[in-house]
Every structure is written in C-alpha cells, then in structure tokens.
C-alpha cells in the first residue's frame, strides 16, 4: 500500500510518500525526513521527549499516526530558532541550565512553547511545574526548566503587553 500525505514542517510544505501505514509522526520525522531533533524516549506517550507542535498544539509525536496528520502544520525543535537567533525559550533553557544530557530538551522546549501558547499557566510556578509534568527529565533539571519557562513566558508576554497598552 502506498499513501501520500501533505505536511507543512517548520514552514515548508512537503508531499510525503509513505509505503507503510504504521509510520508514526515521530518515526516519519526522525527516520524518513531526518529531522532527528525530536527524540524517542519511550515511544508510548510516557515521557514527552517527542513533543512537537501540530497545528499549534503540543502533542506526543510517538502516538500520532503520520497518515492522520495529512494537511497538518508541524513545528519541531529545528524550526524554532530564526537563523542564529534563539527563541526566548531556547535562550532561557541555556541561561538557567534547564538541561543536562539534553535528550529530553527538544521535547521540553516544544512543550514549554506549547504551554506558553496555551496561556493557562502564566507566571505561576506551580502551574508551570504541573504544565511541564508531561516531560520527564531523568537528569532532574526541573528547577532550571521551571525558571527558564517562567523567564521566557515573561519575555514573550512583554511585547504583547506593550502592544495592548
């Protein structure tokens, strides 16, 4: 069976042929499109390392069938920075040492971008911690992650506040 889907990945529209219906969005990104920034930690929706944004929402790419994503807009860690300019979340993760081994980091960052976009947590540390609890970090970098998300959230909210003022 051959299938063809159309995806916009990091702003680039691509037609993707699939010879197998079983391919998940995660394996499509990693093994077929060679966007390996998105990581596979458990493949079962239990760790969050594969978090990407699909149509602006953070999801686990490991539990999303690629075929079902036909027509979707996918944002992965590779599409977050603008050239050499890091996204505020990325910069804050470095500044607050919000990672050690770095393996969960792309998922953490995509999750943080999703969280900030959802607008439910704001700068409340407890809501940020809860909102980031779908991303395991075995190195235990949670303190830095929380600090980074709060700082980035403030930075991203500042221009919006200026506009509305």
């Amino acid at each position, binding site marked *: 069976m051959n299938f063809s889907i159309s995806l916009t990945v990091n702003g680039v529209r691509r037609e993707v042929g699939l010879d197998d219906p079983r391919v998940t969005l995660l394996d499509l990104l990693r093994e077929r499109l060679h966007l390996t920034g998105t990581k596979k930690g458990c493949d*079962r929706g239990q760790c969050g390392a594969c978090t990407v944004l699909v149509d602006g929402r953070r999801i686990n790419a490991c539990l999303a069938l690629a075929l079902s994503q036909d027509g979707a807009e996918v944002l992965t860690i590779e599409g977050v920075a603008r050239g050499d300019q890091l996204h505020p979340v990325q910069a804050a993760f470095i500044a607050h040492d919000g990672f050690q081994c770095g393996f969960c980091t792309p998922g953490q960052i995509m999750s943080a971008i999703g969280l900030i976009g959802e607008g439910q947590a704001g700068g409340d540390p407890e809501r940020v911690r809860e909102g980031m609890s779908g991303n395991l970090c075995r190195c235990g970098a949670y303190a830095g992650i929380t600090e980074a998300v709060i700082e980035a959230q403030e930075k991203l909210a500042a221009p919006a506040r200026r506009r509305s003022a």
Partner: protein
Amino acid sequence: MNLFDYVRPASVAEAIAAASEPGAAYLAAGTNLLDLMKGGMSRPMRLVDLSRLPGLDRIDHLPDGSVRIGALVRNADLAHDAAFARSYPAIAEALLSGASPQLRNAATVGGNLLQRTRCAYFYDVASACNKRQPGAGCDARGGENRLHAVLGWSEACIATHPSDFCVPLVALDAVVEIEGSSGRREMALEALHRLPGDTPHRESALAPGDLIVALRLPSEARAFAPHARYLKLRERTSYAFALVSAAAAFHIEDGAIGAARLALGGVAAKPWRARAAEAVLAGARPGDEVFRRAAEAALADARPSGDNAFKIELARRVVRRALALAAAGTPARVPALPASPFSSAPGAIHGV
C-alpha cells in the same frame, strides 16, 4: 505493530460501514489505540480514521441548558472551554488531572470513554488475561495486584477502568449518543461500561461498528456547579493513573444537601456510581458524620481482589474528603494541581 488497512471515511455513515467488518477499529487521536497496538494488546486489521469526520469536534451549549460535546473534541479543549468549565467544574478538573498536557491536547472525548485498562497483566502479553484472550485465565489473581479492583470484580477479571474524565461524567448522568448500523441511539454513560462477570473481554455495550458521536450532559447537571469536585490520589504528583479517585457534587439548599452525586474511579472495571451513598447524603446537613456514613455506604460491597485491602479504606477516605471539598465549594478556577489533595483550601482537611 501489525500491518493494517487504513481508511479515512468522509462521513459517519461511511465510517460505520467501514468499521462493521471483523477486525476493524476506530482510530481517533490514537493516544490509547496506538499504544495498545505497539504493545501487541490490540492487532486490528483495519483502522478507520475518524479524525477528519466533520461536525464531531463541536461543543454546543444547547438552549435547554444541556451541553452536547462532539466525540472528537479534544480533552484539553473541553477542559479549557470557559463556559463548560463554569458549568461542569468537576469534569474540567478531572480532565486536567489525567495524563499529560500533550496527551490531553490529542486525546478525544470519545476515545477517553473507551480507553482500556492499565492492568499490568493486560499489558503484559505473555500473561494470561481474559480480556485479551477469553478463557485464558487471569494472572492478576495471585499476582501483583495492589492496584486492582475492590468493587464489581469477578474471578475472571480484577482490572480497573483508568479514566478520570468518566468518573464525574457518570456522577452527573452523562449520556452517550451512538450511531450504528441500525441507526442512532443513546445510552446513559453508566450503562456503557460493563462489569467483567464471566466475559471481561466485553467491556462496553457497543456493538461492532457502533460509533460514539457525542456525549451529552443534562441541564440539571449544571446545578451542581457551585459544589463539585474531583479528587485523585496517585503515586506521583502528576502524570500518573489514579490509585483511587472520586467525584462529588451537591445541591445545597438552606444549608442541607438537596441532591448528592458521587462516583469513584480506580476501584472497578467501570467508573463507579455510588447511589447508596447519594441516598445517605440526600437531605442531610453536610458534615463529617454524614460523609463518613456515605463513605461506608459507597464501599459497603467492596472486597479485596488481592493485596489491595488498603484501597477499600483509602477509597472511604477519598470519598469523605471529596465530599468535604465539594461542600466547601468549587474554587473559582481549577487548582494549579488539579484534583490533588495538595490543592485543598485551608480548613478542608480533617483533624486540623
């Protein structure tokens, strides 16, 4: 994961036709089904992808005060729908206490209703499991079963239903709308899930090809909004299945309980409506003594299915606390740690 046919129907009718063949399964987000397929617990021959079906992703607040939720509405969207969360705060809290933000962003309302048990022996395909293979036996009996059912279990199966969402739904008399080969029908959610008996593989009242298209909450359910909570115990602060949970809701009129609703999660193969406890509460003044009697009533039929006698006493305590929290009043906003005991307001804890 086995190879399968993949079909993407354009209408509900096409979907039902495509799913009526043996071995077919509906695919919504896939957050449960793909997990089951990766583990070999489920090996469907055909996936009928519902994700593009039009019209099933709406939340309609109807003129009669009821709400109709399309089966493809995402869990997160429902929980964050301001009007819904205002009317049904315990449901929003339950939704937000389940899984992780990523999973809630994907998982659908219809899919959540039909999620399978997390029984480790169901998941361990080398173990005997009557759900996976009727007649094979149940290795959870005599195994590691401290998390298993204490209500409604049978010799054939002691698994529990993992959903948080379903617990306040059954408490509030949710109704599911089903389309099938013989047309549309509706059913109380409480009747959708079955207890195991001798046929634990038959988990729901759905027939092959039946498709849940919507979930409805009756207008009366809104009246509970001022006193409605969901409480969930778990073994880490977030991103964990319930050890025991409870949804509790009241009408309070002139200082007395007009009507009470109570359901438990994590204790049985289905979300467990505790009507006997509701009867104890009706007409009483809220307080520890009546909550205690309600908890006794809710667990009156409970018995351990293994090393889980503690769950019975724990469930009583969860019921008492959930009732106390509901009596104290619904918070203005779902707490930072939804459904967690650590979100309790001052004074809500016994023995202070």
